[in-house]
């Protein structure tokens, strides 16, 4: 087990290097001259001052040196300063992170509440009216972009029923509507996967064997099948967390929820490159971290996964 966790952690290093390298290269190719951008916002500067500033920021160095310096700074907790507010990027991100994590947690919880019972129901009642209904729901949800789900929810809850005040201004302290939007979008995908994993497990021989030994169907489901599908379901949930992180940018902007996603969209409008860069890195690190965690938990749930790790 220790070896497995170590192996997973080592696997992370090239991925993290790659993520930071790509983010850096992306900014580097497009915003070739940070100094120009900085001075343009302050009404331009003479060449000598610009050159001096470039030297002080290390922008006269070659690409790889700049990258190395930048990574070392990040490791020291310095992600640069925002072009707009002048505040350190790291503190800005840290300020907004709790709001996004709160939204994510609520959305994940709602997703499980919606998709687990419905997915299991459609699997054990395969071919019934319930199964068709769940599949129709899942199909509909999959065809709706998340921002349209947000608008439909706003229309129902704010315009028609007046449960929430319009367009998210002080939607209450808890992000119910944004979380519901994200969880509907995610459940549509997840229900389908739960159904598939369950059906696959139900067709295995041990289920037949247990039933023919006289064990009741609910007992077999709760004691055997549910346990067996826990690991794959967790892994699938971790993978779909990626769409949650991406969707958050749009949904937070619609509902004016003051998290990292809205911060990033606002930063894009103001061409605040350091913030965008930090956003990409943070979201990717969270995504990779969530998947690492799920890998490790899956390893505990199903120790077979920890041996015979084949290099593909």
């Amino acid at each position: 087990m220790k070896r497995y966790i170590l192996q997973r952690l080592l696997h992370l290093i090239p991925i993290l290097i790659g993520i930071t390298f790509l983010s850096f290269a992306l900014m580097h190719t497009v915003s070739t001259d940070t100094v120009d951008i900085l001075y343009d916002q302050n009404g331009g500067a003479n060449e000598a001052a610009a050159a001096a500033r470039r030297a002080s920021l290390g922008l006269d160095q070659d690409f790889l040196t700049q990258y190395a310096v930048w990574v070392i700074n990040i490791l020291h907790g310095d992600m640069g300063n925002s072009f707009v507010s002048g505040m350190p990027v790291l503190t800005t991100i840290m300020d907004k992170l709790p709001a996004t994590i709160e939204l994510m947690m609520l959305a994940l919880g709602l997703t499980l509440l919606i998709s687990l019972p419905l997915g299991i129901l459609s699997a054990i009642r395969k071919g019934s009216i319930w199964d068709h209904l769940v599949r129709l729901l899942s199909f509909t949800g999959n065809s709706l972009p998340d921002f349209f789900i947000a608008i439909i929810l706003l229309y129902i809850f704010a315009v028609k029923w007046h449960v929430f005040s319009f367009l998210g201004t002080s939607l209450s302290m808890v992000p119910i509507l944004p979380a519901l939007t994200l969880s509907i979008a995610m459940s549509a995908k997840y229900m389908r996967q739960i159904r598939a994993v369950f059906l696959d497990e139900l067709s295995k021989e041990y289920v037949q064997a247990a039933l023919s030994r006289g064990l009741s169907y609910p007992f077999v489901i709760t004691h055997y099948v549910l346990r067996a599908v826990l690991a794959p379901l967790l892994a699938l949930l971790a993978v779909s967390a990626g769409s949650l992180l991406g969707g958050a940018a749009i949904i937070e902007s619609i509902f004016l929820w003051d998290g990292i996603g809205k911060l990033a969209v606002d930063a894009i409008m103001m061409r605040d490159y350091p913030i965008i860069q930090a956003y990409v890195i943070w979201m990717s690190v969270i995504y990779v971290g969530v998947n690492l965690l799920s890998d490790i938990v899956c390893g505990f749930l199903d120790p077979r996964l920890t041996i015979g790790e084949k290099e593909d």
Partner: protein
Amino acid sequence: MRSSKRNRFYFFLSLILLILVLSLLADYIMPFGPYDQNLSMALRPPDSVHWLGTDRYGRDMLSRTLSGARTTVCTALAVALAASSFGAFIGLICGYHKGKATTLLLRLTDVFLAFPSMVFAIAVAGILGGGTFNAAAAIAAVAWPKYTRLVRNQVLPLHHEYYIEAARMSGFSPLKILLVQILPEIIGPVLITAALDIGTIITEIAGLSFLGLGAAPPAAEWGSMMSGARNLLQTAPWTIFVPGAAIFITVAIFQLFADSLRDLADSKTPR
């Protein structure tokens, strides 16, 4: 069973062709110009003249939605084509040739897969600046790696097939083997994945436009039409639900088409 699957496939294929024809002929069939303003007719609910109502400048929603179909559908098809052929090409190379360079390429695809796709697309589009082309480029940049994985995993087991070895011994160049012997074997799953992908790409393009990172506001594009009408949800909900419904219907049809294509392929190759 087979024939019903085939009928389903042809049914959805014809629906897709219908969408394509509608979007390509939009200029000839739409009742009004998509950019023709008429302020005296602003914010009219759907009626017999303007079937789907008008927006805040009195522009006909039906015409704008039809005109938007071309932007969205054609862009999505182009992105799917570009991402799948590029990804598949890299996958072919990585699967066929094992070496340091291809290992590095594979690691690179791993890195791309480690980014949550929409996060990366938002950042790329944000850095490149708005515009339909940049939004398409951003989405293609996150869509290709899964084809590389898919194709590589298909190509690897083919290595030891006799007909590949025979071709190799007959002195065929690697490129010729890849294109003539291997490509026909693996094209099916790539097409199915691409078909499944188009719906996602449409929603992603619309999402970027909704954020203001795709087609700019005056353009008739579904995502930006919805974004521009956000504050009309109370007074003129059709201005936002019409383009939304257009996205929903288009994505649904592409999904059903992809499913029917997969079912048809499954029944052809019994596992």
